[in-house]
Each structure stands twice: as C-alpha cells, then as structure tokens.
C-alpha cells in the first residue's frame, strides 16, 4: 500500500457542506429544524447525535419521513473508563431501510445519576425486549415502556452487570439462591428457623 495521493483525497470541509451520501441527504431533510449533529460515519453508516429530549421525535421522523422502517437494535455503551466524563452512558439506536438498502445510527449521551430516556416501543413494539436488556445490563430506564423488567438476570438481582465498575466475578452472585434456599429449608425442617 502506498500513501493516499493528496490530490485525490477529498477536503474535509467539502464533505460537511455538500454531502454526496444519499442517505445523509435523506436524513438531513427528515431532521430539518432539529438540533442534531452528524458525527463521524462509522462502518459507512451515517451517525446522528442529539440531546435525549429529541429521541422520540427523531425516531418518528426517521421512520415516517426518511423511510427507515425497521429497527435493528437498541443498545448501550458505558464510557466510564475511556472518557471519565459524566455523560457516561451512550444509548445507540440503529435503523435500516429495506427499501433504500441503507442504515442510520443515532447516539444519545446520558448521565449516570439520571439515566432515563423515552421508550420507542410505541413506534416499534420490537424495541421492548432490547430496552429491557439495556435496562437490565446498564440500568438505563426507558420511560413509557409497558413492562420494564429485567430480561436476563433474575428479578431482584440488584446490579447492572455490564456497567464498567461492576466486577466480572460479581457481587454476591448467589445471594438470591441462598435466600430462596433458606426459605424453603424452613418448610423442610421447621426446627431450624
């Protein structure tokens, strides 16, 4: 590989002002008038960043105006170690348009003391399980979710295991089992209690 020829490299500013990417053009048109910024495209996917209050509006417009009719995933990233800044969680939504054959990704930053976000289960009912998983693993609360319970960990577990400050080997992983066990031992052997 040789170094890229500077004559062929497109100047950075030109990309920002005149997007050639048809996906980006469509997304910009749909989100016109909203305070969103276009982050660096990753994996050739257009990335949109905005404040959390806008989430529901943005998703609705992307679905109805830009033609992204399918939700790929809702997930969360914990940036505790890498940035040490307070908007610690980053909730990522990704949509796909089957008609146009392209994708868009959105990012919202949340602080740990108020990690709440609007649910999009009314737009895509399938988001329900993914939001439950994000709640279970990171403790992000989705307001308006019809049934925001833990998905993978047992109920009452008390921790959110994919947070970066959660130890890999867990904190009292057997607590719920032991509690259950103690209760039923009483039935087996009433003398013990």
């Amino acid at each position, binding site marked *: 590989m040789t170094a890229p020829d500077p004559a062929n490299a497109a100047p950075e500013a030109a990309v920002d002002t005149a997007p050639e990417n048809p996906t980006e053009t469509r997304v910009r048109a749909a989100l016109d008038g909203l305070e969103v910024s276009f982050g660096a495209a990753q994996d050739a996917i257009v990335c949109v960043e905005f404040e959390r209050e806008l989430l529901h509006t943005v998703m609705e417009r992307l679905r109805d105006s830009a033609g992204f009719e399918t939700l790929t995933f809702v997930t969360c990233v914990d940036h505790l170690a890498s940035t040490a800044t307070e908007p610690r969680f980053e909730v990522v939504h990704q949509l796909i348009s089957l008609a146009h054959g392209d994708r868009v990704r959105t990012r919202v930053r949340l602080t740990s003391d108020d990690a709440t976000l609007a649910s999009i289960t009314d737009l895509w009912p399938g988001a329900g399980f993914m939001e439950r998983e994000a709640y279970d693993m990171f*403790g992000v609360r989705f307001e308006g979710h019809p049934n925001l319970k*833990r998905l993978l*960990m*047992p*109920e*009452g*577990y*008390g*921790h*959110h*295991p994919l947070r970066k*400050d*959660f*130890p*890999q*080997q*867990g*904190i*009292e*992983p*057997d607590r*719920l*089992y032991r509690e*259950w*066990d103690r209760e*039923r*031992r009483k039935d*087996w*052997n009433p003398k013990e209690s």
Partner: protein
Amino acid sequence: MGSLTEARTSSDEGFLATRLDALINWGRKNSLWPMPLGLSCCGIELMAMIGPRFDISRFGAEAARFSPRQCDLMIVAGTLTWKMAKAARTIYDQMPEPKWVLAMGVCSSSGGMYDSYSVVQGIDSILPVDIYVPGCPPRPDAVIDAILKLQKKIERESPIKNLLAGTEVVEHEGTGVIRRQPNHAVERTELDRHPHSPAARETAVHFGAASPESLRGDDQ
C-alpha cells in the same frame, strides 16, 4: 450385566447383610436411569452418548427420563447459572433416594471458563456431586467411563446397614437431608477460596468501589 461380586471383604456385618447388599447394589448400579439436565453444549454430547453409536444402554443407563421421580442419576451437562440453580436444586430434591450426581464437563465441575457473575462456580456448591468428568465437552467415552466408575462406587455402599442402623444423616447446605457424604476429598485452604464463597465475599475489594452496597442497583 456386571456380576454379583462381594461388596466388601470385612465380615463385621454378617453374611446375610453383605449378600443382600451385593444384590441390591447389583440392581442399583445396573439400572442407573439418568436425569439429563442438558444445560448447554455438553448436552449435545450427552445426547450422542445416549444414542446408538455410544449406547449407554449397554450399561443399563439408557432410560433417560424427564420426570425426576423416575431417575437415579442426575447428569448436569452444561453451564449452571445462578438463575437456573433453583430449578436444578428442585429437580434434585424431587428425585427419590438413592440418587447420585454426575458433573459433566468443566462448567458444571468448576465453572470452567465462565469465571463470571452469572455462573455457579462448580455445582458442588449447591449439590452433592459423586463424580466429576473433565473436558469441554468430555467425549462420550469419558462419561461412560465415569458411569462405570460410579458403578464401582455403588458396589461399595451398604444399603442394608444404613437401613437397619438408621442412616448417617448429613446436612448438606441447601435443603433437607442427604444420606450420603458429599465429596470432601479435597481440603480447601484460604488460598483456594473463590470470590463467590461467603467468606471471601466479606473481605473482597471490588475494583476500587467503596463497598458492594455502593454498586447495588435500585430494583430491590
């Protein structure tokens, strides 16, 4: 089909008891009906073992039953999570005596590669295990070998003596009464303590977090 070998050489239990023991043990060891607790990938190997190629019916253990009431041998084949542990323990308690437990694979023996918050670090923290089979997964031959070794172990039991004398009652952590000594062949030391053990938990330092409570969530 095995043989009516004499179980023990010591003669302090009398001729009739040892003969009856031998007969009962012969019956028990040659009809070990497994409870297939196939929890993950090891379960596939368990199915191969039960199928015609490896065929554990040669050893009287082919009748895998999905009702714990009809089982003698619980084969824990796979990764036991703490969420599943309650179910596993309930199934074990529902099995009638006499019963044995086989830990198939490193996951059920020790937690294996899942040194993790969700996995039981060895099913012997909730069940009395008779025999461990290493491997990830173990080949069916290895599990068959374990079943043969378990048959040897059953040969050495003395059911009549236990029946007459009242069994030695062992309280195993968990539920009610278990009539066989769990495997304590390995002495544990302070250094062997796993972070999941209650003693280690009290002294654990969790990666700079002030205390376990400070990391606790809000849903309890």
